[in-house]
């Protein structure tokens, strides 16, 4: 029996990859596709499809039990909250194991080797090591959880795509926004390895993994198999635009120098306090408070509704807390005739002539490793069918339809 004739649950179905997986399964004739949906408001794209939407939460094990009813295959594209990636994957694996799932396809990431993978990790046999990046380390730890389940005989496969792009991908929509805003920049002449993975190539690999023999417990890099650089990727988007935006250039040493000048969290927070007192700001403009606040909200998805509501109330109270800044600032400004300080940031106040990429983009765009897809070719029978030139052509057609261009 073809795996497409069996009930398949797709997690992360309202996301970019999961959404395309659902579409492709329908295109391939699958009749029993179930989509795990956390927030129905995000479901219009998959709501178009003849599939079943099952509301659930990767952090709520009971909802996963219900979502797996009569399911035989799980395609796990879901992430959960940023700080809940590992728990979300563990919950899904446990629920799937209890439900006697026939096969579990785990969408891992080439980021298990960090955002800037070190030389020597071109093949899947390279040892994994944490790098301090939250997303990369979470995907790594999730893969380790997967490996533990596999070692106990659970039928799971991990696919490690790299820079997955295609219609609906934020890589392209964000990039278009940056280019249009005059923030397009090439780091180190754009020579970093991009490891593009066109979304349909990844979905090909997923579909192959549904019943390929001799793949259980294995990891596979999945890319387009071309040596595409970040310069190629960014310039391909520049070429879509009219008028063509300018691209600035920045080197790693310039970026390094910029971040070296930045004060640390404590220093910037201490510096922020006097500025805050002279403004109509709130506590959240102090970097350390802002960071703590972000961390709390990253994990909020794991909390029950009551706790989340309590947090919301607390946040409202903190935001509304009258600071000395209000009255003091108006007096001070009228005396000194200064502009209102609307935000306090960690920057030194001098806008650099060239937009400085954030640290994650810097790392991502300056790697030298091109991952090998030889193992996927050999064992999974994977062959990328959409080359980069065609992938970009499809992205452009979609961006025009969606009115990004």
């Amino acid at each position, binding site marked *: 029996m*073809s795996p*497409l004739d069996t009930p398949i649950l797709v997690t992360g179905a309202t996301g970019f990859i999961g959404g395309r997986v659902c*579409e*492709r399964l*329908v*295109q*391939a004739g699958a009749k029993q596709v179930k989509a795990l949906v956390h927030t*129905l*408001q*995000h*479901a*219009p*794209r998959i*709501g*178009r*499809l*003849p*599939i079943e*939407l099952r*509301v659930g939460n990767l952090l709520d094990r009971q909802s996963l039990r219900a979502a797996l009813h009569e399911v035989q295959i799980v395609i796990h594209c879901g992430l959960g909250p940023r700080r809940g990636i590992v728990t979300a994957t563990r919950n899904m694996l446990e629920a799937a194991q209890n439900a006697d799932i026939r096969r579990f396809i785990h969408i891992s990431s080439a980021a298990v080797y960090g955002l800037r993978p070190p030389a020597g990790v071109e093949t899947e046999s390279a040892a994994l090591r944490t790098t301090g990046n939250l997303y990369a380390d979470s995907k790594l730890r999730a893969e380790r959880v997967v490996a533990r389940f596999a070692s106990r005989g659970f039928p799971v496969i991990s696919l490690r795509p790299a820079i997955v792009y*295609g*219609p609906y991908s934020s890589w392209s929509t964000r990039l278009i926004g940056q280019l249009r805003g005059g923030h397009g920049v090439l780091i180190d002449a754009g020579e970093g390895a991009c490891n593009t993975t066109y979304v*349909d190539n990844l979905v*090909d690999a997923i*579909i*192959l993994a*549904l019943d390929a023999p001799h793949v259980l417990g294995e990891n596979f890099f999945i890319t387009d198999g071309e040596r595409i650089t970040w310069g190629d990727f960014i310039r391909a988007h520049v070429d879509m635009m009219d008028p063509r935006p300018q691209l600035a250039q920045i080197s790693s040493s310039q970026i390094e120098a910029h971040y070296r000048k930045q004060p640390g969290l404590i220093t910037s927070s201490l510096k922020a306090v006097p500025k805050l007192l002279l403004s109509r700001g709130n506590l959240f403009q102090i970097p350390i408070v802002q960071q703590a606040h972000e961390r709390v909200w990253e994990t909020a998805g794991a909390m029950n509704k009551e706790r989340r509501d309590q947090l919301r109330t607390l946040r409202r109270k903190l935001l509304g807390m009258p600071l000395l800044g209000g009255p003091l600032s108006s007096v001070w400004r009228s005396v000194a005739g200064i502009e209102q300080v609307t935000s306090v940031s960690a920057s030194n106040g001098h806008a650099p002539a060239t937009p400085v990429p954030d640290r994650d983009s810097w790392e991502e765009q300056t790697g030298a490793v091109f991952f090998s897809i030889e193992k996927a070719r050999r064992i999974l*029978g994977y062959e990328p*069918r*959409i080359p980069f030139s065609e992938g970009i052509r*499809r*992205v452009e*057609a*979609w961006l025009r*339809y*969606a*009115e*990004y261009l």
Partner: protein
Amino acid sequence: MRGQHLPAAVLHPDVELAALVDAETSRAEKLRAAYGLNCKTTNDYRQLLTEVDAVVNALPNHLHFPVNLAAMQAGVHVLSEKPLAVNATEAKTCCDMAEQNGVTLAVGMSRRFQAGHQLMELLLAREELGKVREYDWESGSAWSWKASSGFYFSREQAGGGVFIDIGVHVLDCLFHWIGPVTRFEYQDDNWGSGIEANAILHTLHDAPHGEVRGRVRLSRTFTLKNRLLVTCEQGTASLDEDSPEEVAIHKRNGRQGLSMTLHPEAAPKGSAFYLQLDNFVQSVRGHATPLVSGRDALAVAEFVEGCYASAKRIPEPWSEIPQLETATGGSR
């Protein structure tokens, strides 16, 4: 209910709120407490029909019809949220029932009460820019409607997707301003038994002064231009969703053009929902007729049904991919 209808009812001096009804009484109770109201709360609307004069029906789409009908059967006036019903047959039954029982049936196409829409209506009716030649209407953004139930993703319960949801507002205005559509081509992105997230409609109106061509594009996934642009003989008029209280016009005058933004001279006070409720109250009292009647909504429902019946798929060339051949030659 909570966001628009209830504040309007609370503010209206001639409305006495008799009860809040919700499938979960606790939700109605919370709302009652939040507004400090002195009214009943219940999960069974039927027990109230002998006690009230009128009902505002803001239930999920598939419940508009049965509740509208039950209310009108009991002689209760109805302000129904749009769509009046999920299909034209049910919408017609509602209109017939209202007429048989002599009750007011108004439909919540609230946009018609917005100042900008009323200005546009006036501009077009008075041919301030000459006769209408064509229009282009785009409305779309990433969807964020928080419904307590998932009815929006059930074809049976919602009646459709973005076209029945937002399209009815657009069609209601177009019919009212320009007249019926005589020819059309409708496309959407429903892949089968799903709910469309995008819809494109090309229209032709045989208006008394000549043909008017139009294009309507709606989306729940993409941010579109979110404006209506009407091209007339002597210029253009545009209505921006971000500025619903004004109309921007550009009038050609020989080689020179004149651009200006129009505001109503004396717009009635209150939100569109308040004005809609006020129009309903005045209609119930016999002092007015509903700005959007059941028959107006029926014309829209019939047109929507015709569009769905003739729907073609929006081409999505980026989605087309040959089936995957496996080693054994089977397609997947």
